[in-house]
């Protein structure tokens, strides 16, 4: 069957029920692909929307393959908030299908001006999608999310604006905290070695050198040489800690620790960082602010900086 016909068939029964939630007096359904978008959207929209997230705790968006049920959920949403910038490798087609079926969609990451993005392999290569690591950039994304929610529920736009102001104030406080605690790391130790290359924006904003074992996407495989070069770096610069990520296998990180130990340099696992997925919904680490607070606090403490154990609001689980 040609793709157009198949798409029409798939969409037809669902098209008959546009905005079913709204018609029944329920608030509109705003479906986000990743929790880094979904949690701020829930906070900004408040009671004016029903906020849901497709990918749960610890799920890797680079590799995730959508199921038919996911497609059905996308086709039922009144607004789809996805990240774009090449993050959702295999979800993209399903999102395009939802958009072709008339669902409103916003690529949140792409609302950030191009000149602020990092293009790791030159200006014509795909950008690094992990922009939520920089509170200033993610604030711009929050503006775009708030604008779309206000457009969806004009009656609630005043409360959405209040929520946005509170959100940006908290993000600014987090930003100042991060600058302070990461700045307290001795300069020669400001090197962040992680399982994959997800911390480029964090590094740029706070002056950390960032080295991922795997590339920007977890789909790339690290070769033996990459492991070898990183062990060399750890030993030469006497870096005390490396970091695992909650959504990536920590085998490679363990291999680094072993390699450095064989050279007589003790490296510890500094902790698990949230990179492409955040903590359990309902916990502080399950919010975007909490996720960054956890990362910044963990990195600062493991690399020899000064940071309170429970983060800038005293809310991290210890």
């Amino acid at each position, binding site marked *: 069957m040609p793709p157009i016909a198949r798409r029409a068939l798939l969409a037809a029964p669902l098209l008959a029920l546009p905005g079913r939630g709204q018609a029944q007096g329920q608030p509109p359904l705003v479906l986000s692909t990743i929790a880094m978008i979904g949690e701020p959207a829930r906070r900004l929209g408040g009671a004016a929307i029903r906020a849901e997230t497709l990918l749960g705790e610890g799920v890797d968006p680079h*590799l995730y393959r959508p199921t038919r049920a996911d497609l059905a959920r996308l086709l039922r949403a009144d607004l789809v908030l996805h990240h774009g910038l090449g993050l959702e490798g295999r979800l993209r087609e399903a999102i395009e299908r939802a958009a072709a079926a008339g669902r409103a969609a916003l690529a949140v990451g792409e609302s950030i001006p191009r000149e602020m993005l990092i293009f790791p392999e030159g200006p014509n290569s795909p950008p690094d999608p992990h922009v939520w690591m920089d509170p200033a950039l993610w604030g711009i994304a929050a503006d775009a999310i708030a604008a779309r929610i206000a457009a969806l529920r004009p009656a609630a736009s005043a409360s959405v604006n209040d929520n946005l102001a509170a959100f940006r104030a908290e993000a600014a406080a987090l930003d100042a905290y991060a600058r302070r605690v990461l700045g307290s790391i001795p300069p020669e130790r400001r090197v962040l070695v992680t399982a994959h290359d997800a911390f480029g924006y964090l590094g740029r904003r706070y002056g950390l050198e960032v080295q991922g074992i795997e590339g920007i996407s977890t789909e790339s495989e690290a070769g*033996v040489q990459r492991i070898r070069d990183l062990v*060399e770096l750890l030993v030469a610069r006497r870096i005390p800690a490396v970091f695992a990520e909650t*959504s990536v*296998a920590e085998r490679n990180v363990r291999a680094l620790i072993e*390699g450095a130990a064989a050279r007589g340099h003790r490296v510890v696992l500094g902790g698990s960082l949230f990179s492409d997925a955040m903590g359990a919904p309902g916990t502080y680490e399950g919010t975007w602010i909490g996720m960054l607070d956890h990362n910044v606090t963990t990195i600062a403490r493991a690399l020899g900086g000064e940071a309170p154990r429970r983060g800038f609001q005293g809310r991290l689980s210890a």
Partner: protein
Amino acid sequence: MWEALAFRAGHNAAVVALGCIVFGLAAGAVGCFVLLRGRALIADAAAHATLPGIAAAFLLALPLGLDPRALPWLLAGGAVTALLGVVAAHALASSGRVKDDAAIAVALSAFFGLGAVLLSVVQALPVAGQAGLSGLLLGRAAGMTAADAATMAAVAGIALGLLLLLRRPLAALLFDPLQARLAGLPAGALDAALLGLMLLVVLAGLPAVGLVLVVALLIVPAAAARLLVVRLPAMVALSAAFGAGASHLGVALSASAPGLPTGATIVLVALAGFLLALLLSPRRGLIAAFRRQAALMAAARAAAR
């Protein structure tokens, strides 16, 4: 490159190299028997049939309170479904309703398909990314720890040891099944033992080259050795050396150039060796065949004159 070949490119490269060399040795030796017994396709089916077992072991580990990332546990799960896959293919073929190759293809795709479905369930779980199951598809040798390499070498070593014990009856099974039966050798049990050895090698190779490519190291060195020598002991020795050498060279290349995935590099090195054997083999090589033909033509022309 040279320092990697001499195991002086650091702890990690040495660990990966040693694990892969023991695997290559076992794969090359066992591969000869698999090839000569006509079991190459079954080996591929068994490799693909490990996928649902790996995914199921991961899913079962959670309620059982085990560590779902532990390599031995995942490999044990893979062994169970690989065995089921081989038995299914065998039962289907011996029912006489489908041909052998079709039966193997059905078993391979059924088990691999089931594995893909289970992986789709696994990916939505919180700990899924941590397990790195996708690394077992195409192999992820570079990040191997000493414990992983030891697991791999132990499994491959067991296969190698068992092969040494069983070499005489297995050889009899290959070359003279009738004589073997007359001598009272249980052909069915020997065939099963050969399948078991093959399974061990497949499991040992999963972390390094992955389940899609593991069959290459079982078959390619054996096929190359077959082109070069005639007698079985020489073939087994050559094939084992070839498998180990390709693994060693593949790891060394991957340690010396950026962005070369270890498993695929090993397979490509083995294939390059096979092509050389295909060209240069004194009896069965393409160049030798061409020269024989040229000599025949010259003789024919001389006779016509």
